[in-house]
């Protein structure tokens, strides 16, 4: 029979035997978030994209400043200076930096105000989408059983709906407007997020720490949001950054189809739509709003890619291995 183990207990070296002072930890923990953040900072493409995003946000926030610098209001029509004698838009000049549109309005100022709409819809509709998707995914994945069966079928149904057709129908019934646009986008894009979260939760709920939480008497809601949610947050964030450009494009699409905001309001999709008949004569009319939309979505997309890479250390390890 083996002897009982030695009675003297000394912990592993890292736990100092004496620790009288209970000050705040001298060593700040490098959380997975910090590590991901550092990887992100090393990603040059992502940083460039982040700069572009910040610039667009600044443009949106300081749109009134742009208006006062140029001296042009967003909806003001400059029929004398902003239109050629035969009524065509003016090319970019010292007066109108990015030219004017068919009504003699300053395109630069309208792009700045349009950025507000795009970003607002992009962020709010994405937030709505993510919230619904995460809650449904968590509930379906963790609660399982009948709840899962019903929610999974709902997810399938929502995914199979032809989004644009339904959006057009709904917007024409309930009227065009910012709130309706956000609600329609939110109501039909949460399903893929829910599916991603559900898949993650299905494997996480079998982990022992979930069992530990149950043995302590934690409620289902607490386990879902306190124990499981932090473990799917990385995927949620990655998907969110990739969802924002999609939502911006959808909003621009609805505007382009005339289902966006009421007429004088500046927004990118509407501007591109107005420029349709002028692209042969006034290249700037369609180019600059188009560029703004392209730059924004591209920046968000590439930044989202960077975030995904930053949160997936395995992929990083692989490339490191290949480089030797």
């Amino acid at each position, binding site marked *: 029979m083996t002897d009982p183990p030695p009675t003297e*207990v000394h912990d592993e070296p890292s736990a100092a035997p004496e620790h009288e002072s209970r000050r705040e930890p001298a060593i700040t923990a490098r959380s997975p978030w910090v590590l991901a953040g550092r990887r992100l900072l090393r990603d040059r493409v992502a940083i460039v994209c982040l700069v572009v995003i910040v610039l667009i946000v600044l443009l949106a926030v300081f749109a009134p400043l742009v208006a006062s610098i140029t001296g042009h209001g967003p909806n003001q029509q400059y029929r004398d200076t902003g239109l050629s004698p035969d009524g065509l838009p003016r090319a970019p000049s010292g007066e109108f930096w990015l030219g004017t549109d068919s009504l003699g309005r300053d395109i630069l100022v309208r792009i700045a105000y349009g950025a507000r709409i795009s970003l607002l819809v992009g962020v709010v509709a994405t937030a709505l989408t993510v919230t619904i998707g995460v809650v449904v995914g968590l509930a379906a994945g963790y609660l399982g059983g009948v709840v899962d069966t019903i929610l999974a079928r709902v997810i399938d149904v929502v995914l199979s709906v032809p989004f644009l057709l339904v959006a057009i129908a709904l917007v024409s019934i309930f009227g065009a407007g910012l709130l309706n646009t956000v609600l329609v986008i939110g109501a039909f894009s949460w399903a893929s997020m829910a599916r991603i979260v559900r898949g993650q939760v299905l494997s996480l709920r079998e982990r022992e720490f979930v069992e530990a939480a149950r043995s302590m008497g934690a409620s289902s809601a607490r386990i879902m949001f306190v124990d499981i949610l932090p473990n799917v947050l990385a995927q949620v964030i990655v998907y969110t950054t990739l969802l924002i450009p999609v939502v911006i494009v959808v909003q621009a699409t609805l505007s382009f189809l005339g289902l966006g905001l009421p007429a004088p309001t500046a927004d990118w999709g509407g501007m591109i739509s107005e420029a349709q008949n002028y692209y042969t004569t006034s290249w700037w009319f369609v180019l600059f709003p188009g560029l703004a939309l392209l730059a924004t979505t591209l920046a968000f997309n590439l930044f989202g890619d960077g975030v995904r890479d930053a949160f997936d250390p395995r992929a990083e390890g692989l490339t490191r291995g290949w480089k030797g």
Partner: protein
Amino acid sequence: MRKVNVGSCLTRLHDLSAGSVVFDGRDITTLSRRQLRPVRRDIQMIFQDPYGSLNPRRRVGSIIGDPFAIHRSGARSTRKAQVQELMERVGLNPEHYNRFPAEFSGGQRQRIGVARALALNPRVLVCDEPVSALDVSIQAQIINLLVDLQAEFGLTLVFISHDLSVIRHVSDRVAVMYLGRIVETGRVQQLYELPRHPYTRALLSALPVADPDLADSQSGIVLTGDVPSPVFPPSGCRFHTRCPRAEQDCVQSEPVLAPVLDDLPDHETACHHPLAVGELLSDSQPSIADTQIQNRTDSGRKSR
């Protein structure tokens, strides 16, 4: 029922298919989640895998503080102090409050699990193979910690393990399970020195002995054959397919736990043909056991 399942049934993590769990005179077998909450304060669990049982995305301070938060025990303002006190008690540096589980070694992680289990001053601690995932050198530290805490807090430990030496070190009473049934139970001293059940006897003889001279004199009993499927357990005594003492009645009727011969009343054995004091398992002449199995047992002994 596997021995590990016993632990999760005691804590009502799994529902029981048969039998009951009685705690403090109260049947908790069928309590609802809500009714179970106060009981959970008294019965806490330590898990086998210290890598799986701590949430990798949460800081140690909040993991250990979980029981307080779940049971709304103690003010939020004093929670940090409480948690750090617990950390100190289990031999962790309280300054590591804000670290993540990944920053600790296996032994330290198990200490975190112990601290979490102790948070609400439970009366029963179900330890599900608490050291089997750890290095041998660390096992001793965790076991001694548990033994110290047991004395300090007056805890009852339910210690589930396959490691006989560890069990002997920590236990007062032992229950031996084979194929989902308790085959023998008794005080640790008596059970280890006077095993009545052939399975217990074979199990104990499989323990390695540190002294090579002594090892020679102790004849090992090698059980042969595979463990039968627990889904379709053998009829009668579940051990009869591998038992050198099995007879016809072992196939037909399942023995119940009962005191044997002149044993103390709390030493119970579920066997139709328990071993007498000093009787060796190898002396048995099986009447029904496969002779081939017996031959292999013999040759196994000779080769030692």
